[in-house]
């Protein structure tokens, strides 16, 4: 690996590592600390192949590696409740209803890992169905159906809540 490769990798990390870490936190539902370990190990793979991939959309490759690692991790450890109980962020964004937010995250945490990954990539990363499919190594049809089912489950839960509070 040349010095220029190394410098480009640092640039890549500076630009993308926080976003990748956030995606990992959302997909695997673990604490930021655990997710960091996961992202490091995934990025090591990126680093190993860096001279070859740096000019060929390394971000897409890195995201695919990170998301796959996060999915396996979520499956392995079945961390589904952690996302609910993790401490609230220091700088919360404006939200009309924190209770609703928590509820949504709790529901998100209960979905199967792959379905959750679809929702994170589609609605948080704003990726298209085709991009999400590429990142997850599945078809656009699968993305469509998984997203629809995931949203349906969350909607059902919301409807119940509104019913209760009304």
């Amino acid at each position, binding site marked *: 690996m040349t010095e220029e490769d190394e410098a480009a990798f640092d640039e890549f990390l500076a630009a993308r590592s926080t976003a990748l870490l956030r995606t990992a936190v959302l997909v695997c539902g673990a604490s930021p600390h655990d997710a960091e370990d996961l*992202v490091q190990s995934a990025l*090591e793979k990126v680093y190993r*192949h860096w001279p070859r991939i740096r000019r060929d959309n390394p971000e897409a490759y890195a995201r695919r590696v990170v998301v796959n690692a996060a999915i396996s991790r979520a499956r392995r450890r079945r961390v589904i409740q952690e996302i609910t109980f993790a401490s609230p*962020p220091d700088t919360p964004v404006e939200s009309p209803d924190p209770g609703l*937010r928590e509820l949504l995250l709790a529901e998100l945490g209960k979905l199967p890992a792959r379905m959750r990954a679809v929702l994170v990539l589609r609605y948080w990363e704003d990726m298209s169905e085709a*991009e999400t499919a590429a990142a997850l190594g599945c078809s656009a049809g*699968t993305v469509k159906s998984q997203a629809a089912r995931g*949203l349906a489950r969350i*909607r059902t839960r919301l409807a119940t809540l509104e019913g209760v509070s009304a």
Partner: protein
Amino acid sequence: MNVEETLKEAMASRVAAVQAPPSMGQRIRRRSRRNVVRFRTAGAALLTVAVAGAVPVYLSATSGPAPAQVGAPAAETPESAADDIAVSGNAVPNVVGLRVDEVLPALKAAGFKADWKKVVTDGAPHGTITEQKPAAGAVAPEGSTVEVTIATRAAPDPSATPTTDELPQDLGDLGDGRTFGGVHFGYLPAGLEWGKWSGKNGFGDTSYTTTWDEPSKTGSGEYSVQAVVYQGKAARARRGIAKGDPVTIHGRQGYLGRLTEGGELVAERAEDNTLTLVWFPRADRAVEIMMSPTFATKLGDADKTEIQKIAEGVVVRN
């Protein structure tokens, strides 16, 4: 209220405070150095895979349609300099230039094992070491493996055309490449030729491997079908890690699945997974067939049928 929007907002709030630490690059590099050594310690399997399999998979896996978005603002790189932190271990001695019989004592004395690779070259005397990994002076854990490359002369063969490929030739000239490791491959998909290389023990003791390629791609490192024959201990070890849907080949149990680079099973054919069929024709024998993603894509929905036909064409000879 729109569920998608609310969900997005909830996710954003969940991770608003999450920041990658500036030391991440440093930690990735340190981890990488450890793993590279572990990689080689694990045996030549990875070498073989890297030569025959991962390269084409890899090239295709990274040529996705999405446009590159990197290299954006050249942000500050706070930790690039502080990287040279020593890992515990021994310094690797310089063995380049030594003769084959001198290498092992030299490496042993420093606490390392050797892994061999032969290269046909006229650039160095026959039987001398031309390359080593890790390089001399690098620090590697005691007991890890140093990969050395030995210069050899091509066997005097009038029909042999000089090639630039550096693939191992552990089993010599296999003719049509269909018989090795005590196994004969009676069926191969149309249009494939022997890849003109073979590896021994890259997948454990005792194992043999080779590939069949499309003639236009021979020597490029891109394979179409790779087979590994495992005997004895290697066969038993392979049995322990078989994954996939159960299949039966002539009454013997096997597994068929699409495996990612990380060894995960996935349902659908894609550029980053390899259709793999492994079965156990005898207690002390395992045969594994891998189809490159490129070739599987070319076959389309016939890929699984073809890989099973290859398996059914296999005859164990001894």
